[in-house]
């Protein structure tokens, strides 16, 4: 089990009903963590969702370490 800080933005923040949370999880990777939280919060299907760990882009096989900060990044729309 790892304790992970998760931050939510935009549509995921609204669906989760919070901007961040501490999660105690058995998920080994960012991808597993997303599937766990997607089920819990009922996230919408998003094309080209990305993920960042500790404020750097990561991939979905990134192994989680206790204390990691994970952010799921919905399709961006700046400008």
């Amino acid at each position, binding site marked *: 089990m790892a304790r992970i800080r998760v*931050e939510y*933005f*935009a*549509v995921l*923040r*609204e669906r989760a009903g919070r901007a961040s949370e501490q999660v105690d999880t058995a998920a080994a990777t960012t991808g597993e963590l997303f599937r766990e939280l997607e089920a819990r919060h009922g996230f*919408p299907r*998003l094309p080209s969702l990305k993920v*960042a760990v500790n*404020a*750097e*882009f990561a991939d979905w096989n990134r192994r989680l370490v206790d204390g990691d900060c994970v*952010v799921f*990044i*919905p*399709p*961006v*729309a*700046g*400008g």
Partner: protein
Amino acid sequence: MDGPGFSFSRSALDVPDLARALADPACGALVGFEGRVRDHNEGRHVERLEYEGYEELGLKEGARIIAEALERFDIAHARCVHRLGLLALGDIAVWVGVSAHHRGEAFAACRYIIDEVKDRVPIWKKEHYADGDSGWINCEVRSEAPPP
């Protein structure tokens, strides 16, 4: 030039002031891009919109884009500022400025920066429509193609 190459702002952008910071007696060309809030998208009337940013990562990615532009193009200075928070119609949402000796490089670098910022910097846009509805662009609402 003072200040970072990429930043966020929660207040209105002062474009003349931003442009002044790029001026350089050696530079003959300054190309600026302003992205403004439009009154419609996909045929729906937009009343206002809000931008949300993942600022910590956004600042890093924005700075990387500016550094790439300075490396790939023969330019002197480059800067991009993106608004966050609630914006009204006509407000400037993003500004990019590039100064260079020659205009070809300034145009190319300015275009590169705005394209990459829109593609890579974690910023989200929620549009509020005249009919009371609202939605996150690219998540709940399709953006117009090609993007503005």
